[in-house]
């Protein structure tokens, strides 16, 4: 057994190839889902791609893996990076040539963010999407968005768009902190 800690260079090299001692044939589908749950969204590193609901499906026969991924927004600049991060994580687990499919339909909705994902967003300082996307009104009043930092419901929207397309910018009128709100779509 080699007990020395791998250097960052080792990790870099290893991340790009299949480890020699990997036994991907022993991986179950559940194990692959668990591996995917370790792949974090690069723009919101508090949640995994599974918690975000963008991994739609996978098929695994012990040799060939296909993962269906859907983008959050049409113009999300992280789409290619996320696909590459997923492929990399799969290769690191010993899976050769994982195939990542980009699927547009059905369109991603924030309703697919898991309960756990919502809690992690809140803990990260981002207010999770409120209510259901299908019930959002076009020109009507907004829902009350609670401050993820102090919990106050005394907040106001500063802008419909925040640091990324998927978020709006809010401000808490009690603790005075600005915060991102993950918009319902």
């Amino acid at each position: 057994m080699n007990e020395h800690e791998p250097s960052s260079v080792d990790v870099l090299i290893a991340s790009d190839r299949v480890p020699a001692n990997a036994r991907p044939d022993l991986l179950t589908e559940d194990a692959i889902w668990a591996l995917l749950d370790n792949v974090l969204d690069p723009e919101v590193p508090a949640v995994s791609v599974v918690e975000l609901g963008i991994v739609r499906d996978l098929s695994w026969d012990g040799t060939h893996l296909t993962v269906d991924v859907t983008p959050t927004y049409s113009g999300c600049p992280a789409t290619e990076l996320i696909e590459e991060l997923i492929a990399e994580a799969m290769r690191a687990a010993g899976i050769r040539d994982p195939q990542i499919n980009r699927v547009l339909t059905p369109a991603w909705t924030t309703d697919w963010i898991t309960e756990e994902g919502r809690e992690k967003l809140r803990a990260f300082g981002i207010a999770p999407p409120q209510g259901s996307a299908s019930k959002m009104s076009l020109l009507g009043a907004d829902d009350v968005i609670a401050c993820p930092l102090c919990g106050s419901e005394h907040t106001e929207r500063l802008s419909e768009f925040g640091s990324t397309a998927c978020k709006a910018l809010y401000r808490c009128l009690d603790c005075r902190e600005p915060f991102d709100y993950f918009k319902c779509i």
Partner: protein
Amino acid sequence: MTQQEALQEYLLRMADSGMILAQRLSELVGKAPALEEELASSNVALDLIGQARNWYEYAAELIDDGRDADKLVFLRDAHDYRNLLMVEQPNDDYAVTMARQFFFDVWHYFTLKALSNSKDERIATIAAKAVKEATYHLRRSSEWVKRMGDGTEESHRRIQDAFNLLWRFTGELITPDDIDHAMFEAGIGPDPQQLKQDWFGMVREVAAQATLAVGEEDAWMYMGGKTGEHTEHLGHILAVMQFLPRAYPDATTW
């Protein structure tokens, strides 16, 4: 014109209109009137570019002459562009920027809503995603129109001037031509009558709340963008947008 040629033209209209408006909005990066507005404008631009890419990729597959989305964007001249004249108009003051956005967003929202029920599955898929984004664009621009219209004397004057200035480009949004009719008859595109009715309905509703007057339905309108006849502005937009890929053709790293 065959059905497929009409479809290609239609896809280019959707793609080019989003792309050119996104390029206009990108001009605000670094000089929007407020930080929040800079973020909002660039996010809207990003959505529009993402949607445009989806339309271009579909168009490129149908055109099938070896050009991809990038080549369609960077290597076509103004007369090959099929965008609405509205979107190539200059940013001017923020009231003009927002009036342009509002007129476009209302058209975009109802068009995408109809397209998400298109018989063409690829179109329905792209539109179903895009309409969610366009909903937020419309929420923002309509709120700005109301805020400026029902705001101070100065903001009211400016947004009313902007409505008057841009009104002559609204006709093109809702006046169908042969291609629009062909797309509707094939179950692919929106019902032109319905689109016109929906567009006027929402524009009048928001204008009323904003205490703004809208122009006449039968006012003289500038048309031609959808068939490649543009205002003097498009060439300048393309000159900026296309310079790099034309100066360094096929460069993979810039």
